[in-house]
């Protein structure tokens, strides 16, 4: 087992090289070198629309990442307009 996270693992069965695949449905999201979520489906949502416990604000959004195969929610990421995530910051590089 080459576990990456609760729902992702490393496989080489498709391309012979290290790819990220969903451990639930087997969907191959893409090469590991591109980043573990590079192949995920993403959607930005207003936190308050998900639940009222996220007080209404226009300073923060949640970006949700899903497996394109089974739609499992892989990650919830806060997006803060005035404090953007540095692009080179890895998620996890194994």
């Amino acid at each position, binding site marked *: 087992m080459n*576990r990456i*996270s609760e729902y992702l693992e490393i496989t080489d069965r498709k391309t012979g090289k290290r790819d990220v695949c969903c451990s639930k449905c087997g969907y191959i999201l893409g090469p590991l070198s591109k980043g573990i979520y590079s192949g995920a489906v993403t959607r930005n949502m207003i936190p308050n629309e998900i639940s009222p416990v996220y007080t209404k604000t226009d300073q923060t959004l949640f970006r949700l990442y899903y497996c394109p195969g089974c739609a499992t*929610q892989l990650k919830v990421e806060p997006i803060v307009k005035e404090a953007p995530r540095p692009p080179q*910051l890895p998620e996890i590089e194994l």
Partner: protein
Amino acid sequence: MRENKATDPFTYEIVSHKLWQITEEMALAMKNVSGSPIVTEANDFNVAISLSDGQLSTMGAHNALVAGVIPLLIRNILEDYGSGDEICKGDMFVINDPHKGALHQLDLAVVAPVHYQNELVAWTSVIAHEVDIGGMQHGSPSPKATEIFQEGLRIPALKLVEKGKFQWDIFRMILSNVRQAGLVGLDIKARVATNSVGQARLYDLLSRFGRKVTLSVMQGVIDRSEKKFRERLLELPESHVGAIDYIDHDGHTNKIYKIVLKMTKESDSLSFDYSGTDDQAPGHINCTISGLITGVMGAVFPYICYDIPWNQGVMKAISIHAPEGSLVNCKPPAPTGWASIAGMFAVRNAAIQAVCKLLGSSREHWRQAGGVWEGGKAAPVIMGINQYGERSAYLYQSSGGAGAMAYKDGYDCSFSISSTKPSIPNIETAETFAPALFLFNRFRKDSGGSGKYRGGAALEFAFVRYGSTDVSVGGSGHGAVIPASQGIFGGYPGGFILRSIKRQTNIDAILVAGKIPQSIEEIDGNVEVLSAKFPPTSLDSDAVFYNSYSGGGGYGDPLDRDPQSVLQDVINDIVSPEAARSIYGVVLRRGSVDLSGTETLRKTIRNDRLGV
């Protein structure tokens, strides 16, 4: 198994247990003499025994945060006092300077060298949070502060006791600069007593077992922790992991700061690089290197070292870096008043995220991964004239929730992960000391980050002023517009903190009519949502103050949560029926789970996710 010729395993067990016992006695001495609620109730202090060069050997089981502080304090003392030449038997140092190792000025430390046969062989220390240390506002940190000079007395290492003689001039100097001098003075004496106990008992130990055996066990506990920790690191994958955490509001403006971490696991070491972090802020949220180290250890200790004694041994396998001038390694005169709940927390939260992603990728240790605990504080200070006609300020401590784990929900109402034995006050205690009447105090519905495993719920409460006409409320929290407690692997963050005042309400009419409102929405009036840091705001007789802490981060996709658990959550009022449907995709019919309805709903939600 490493054979230490100097100590057989039984002697090792006896001496290491006695070292622990000494920290227990020191802690009890502190509680006995001090009598201050911060020490006796909140357990906001800790004690430690170190080697002669400051390495932390045994630490007490109270506030877990001193590990990052004590070695720095001692190293600074050694530097300032001629590498030990000027340190004499019977000396004790008082120190609280964040640039000399303290977390922030409110955490006052007294550190004492232990001499045996004319040689400096060890140190005992005690650090405790003080009720006030001077500065521009009662309680010391102020959102208005722009410089460390405004935050109270800053003491580099000074000899509070010199060769056994208590230095009254230094004592008087400290007390003339603080409010509630009586209490602070007592606490200082308590720290002296604590170290006296530690020194005497260490001396007994050294006499009984000899210098060689005692020091070898003190070193031995460090070596064992280092060995076990490195062994565990070798079981984790080589990797780089990134994480970001945020702090909203620096006291002056509602700006959002980012704390950026790149963690690297290589062979049997772990490194934490906070280079991408924002520069230091003009307000009191910064921390110095002590906060940086403490924050990292605040993640590593509970998540990776849950069965390894916490001491220098673990720290040896870790390297930490942040550029000087960064928010998490600030330069003077940056204000650091609330370093302990702002900058340091953000360091810790980012470290928890990174450590958990690392653990989550491990075949052996994935169960140790989880969401972030109570990422920010949200305690209100109730001030003004109390019900006895006195000017007072009462900090009402409540609690957020713990992060969910890979195999269980987060602990509801957990308090900070950095406290081992926390407790929050009873309402009857709060109403005895503060001019307030509480309308409710309970788990906040949906505050626990949703996920396969739910984050722990935070508490929410509301009160009106009671017994006084001069009441204001102020607060310094974080996580009002950003999530302080992030989830992991698809889990949602815990709910934001929320403070609000509803004015011109009909609360009196409601109570007179014999009802007790159970939500702010049930009351008529005008709501003002307060920002993360808000200055003292007065409460009129018809104002209702509301406060909620941050829930714990969730673990995994909520659609994977066992529907029976969701049902139980709804029965317990911890999850709303709306969230049960829209977030968890669970259909409940007449008090039980509709399995086929749930399957269908979850399928619909999944399709919706992919835009199908």
